[in-house]
């Protein structure tokens, strides 16, 4: 366990890492903290990057994540952790500096997966993705002059990209191996989003054979089945991969992410939270905003208080803006079958609906409804928070 004045190294300064730093203070830790971040940018929130920042409705600066300055927090920017020595309790940086620790928070998140990662990029060209602030700025600028784009992947991110581009009057083609959001959210949500996408003029092409990226006239193009699709821009949105390479050789189990126990611990001095962490049995990553918040707080409590800290309570929740739909989902996706309407009306696209199994709620969806997250958790059958 970590003494209150021990040194804590936090690797990754995004929502999980920053939450961990503030939670340390809130829980009475008084020792030195070193917050390490590979990127040069000041910390920022990612959800707006595929929404208001991408459309230009909000400035990139508005996405920043504030962190109170403090003399005991040293912030390293533009330098990556490249090594973890568990026995020697030291993190090694790319610059060569060793960082000894009493406690370590692994919050290195994830990066965009590419079609190349899936073995389907034969073009020899670099793919375009959306994950970082720099990606978002570049894509925003390019969308301003684009007239047609091709998006590979019809998951939550691919369809958000499609929404923004369509709203800017750009001709959008989405290529995918299955219907929009189908495996993640289930057939009801999928059909809802598909209908909206088509109503907004998006061309959706689905073919289980999978997309291959090819080169056409020096530019990236995408082949699905026997057709090659070209646009001003081809963007890959095919999921994410945990940033675990720096842990190679550490002996930590990193598949499908850094595997943690019921309190987000790897050892009694090392914890992990957010997109990089894999929790439960079988261990699964849950790459969403609210999960990063809850896990970071659970992890820090466990670092300081060991087994007396509360266990992590999974309360799945995420949201997505899709065309004219603001969706908020709680509970265990995918949702199967027809839901019960608890409030509003689906015909008006303003509703709160619920899925049950054997009479017990396991999922809820709010469509174009402002609803307190606590109420949505309740409708979704999620447990009440144990770590406020």
């Amino acid at each position, binding site marked *: 366990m970590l003494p209150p004045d021990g040194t804590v190294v936090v690797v990754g300064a995004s929502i999980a890492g920053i*939450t961990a730093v503030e939670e340390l203070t809130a829980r009475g830790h008084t020792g030195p903290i070193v917050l390490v971040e590979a990127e040069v940018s000041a910390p920022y929130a990612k959800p707006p990057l595929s929404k208001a920042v991408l459309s230009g409705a909000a400035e990139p600066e508005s996405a920043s994540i504030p962190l109170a300055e403090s003399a005991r927090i040293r912030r390293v920017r533009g330098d990556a952790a490249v090594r973890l020595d568990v026995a020697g309790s030291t993190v090694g940086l790319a610059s060569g500096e060793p960082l000894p620790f009493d406690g370590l928070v692994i919050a290195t998140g994830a990066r965009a997966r590419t079609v190349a990662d899936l073995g389907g990029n034969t073009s020899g060209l670099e793919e375009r993705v959306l994950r970082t602030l720099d990606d978002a700025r570049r894509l925003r600028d390019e969308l301003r002059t684009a007239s047609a784009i091709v998006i590979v992947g019809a998951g939550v991110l691919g369809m958000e990209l499609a929404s923004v581009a369509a709203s800017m009057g750009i001709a959008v083609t989405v290529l995918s191996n299955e219907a929009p959001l189908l495996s993640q959210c289930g057939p009801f949500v999928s059909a809802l989003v598909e209908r909206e996408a088509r109503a907004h003029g998006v061309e959706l092409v689905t073919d289980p054979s999978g997309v291959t990226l090819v080169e056409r006239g020096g530019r990236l193009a995408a082949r699905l089945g026997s057709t090659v699709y070209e646009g001003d821009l081809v963007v890959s949105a095919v999921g994410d991969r945990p940033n675990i390479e720096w842990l190679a050789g550490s002996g930590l189990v990193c598949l499908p992410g850094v595997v943690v126990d019921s309190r987000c611990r790897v050892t009694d001095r090392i914890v992990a939270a957010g997109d990089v962490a894999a929790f439960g049995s079988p261990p699964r990553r849950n790459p969403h905003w609210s999960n990063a918040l809850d896990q970071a707080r659970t992890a820090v409590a466990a670092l300081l208080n060991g087994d007396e800290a509360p266990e992590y309570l999974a309360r799945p929740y995420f949201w997505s803006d899709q065309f004219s739909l*603001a969706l908020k989902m709680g509970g265990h996706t995918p949702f199967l079958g027809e839901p019960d309407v608890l409030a509003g009306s689906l015909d008006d696209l303003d509703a709160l609906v619920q899925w049950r199994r054997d009479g017990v709620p396991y999922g809820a969806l709010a469509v174009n409804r*402002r609803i307190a997250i606590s109420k949505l958790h309740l409708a979704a059958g999620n447990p009440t928070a144990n770590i406020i």
Partner: protein
Amino acid sequence: MKISVDRTRCEGYGFCEEKAPTLLRLDSDDELEILSEEVGDDQQDRARLAVRSCPVAALRLEE
């Protein structure tokens, strides 16, 4: 310390309410209500947590 909300940005996610229920609340129309603009010394950690948890950065703290 004072807390304020930019209503044009707030989308009613309610993360802030969950982190600082004594300062912020979504009312019956799920509009965000600031229960106490002035943040007491014992509430500052919660206020920061609330500000940071908002995914659209709609909340602001002034020291």
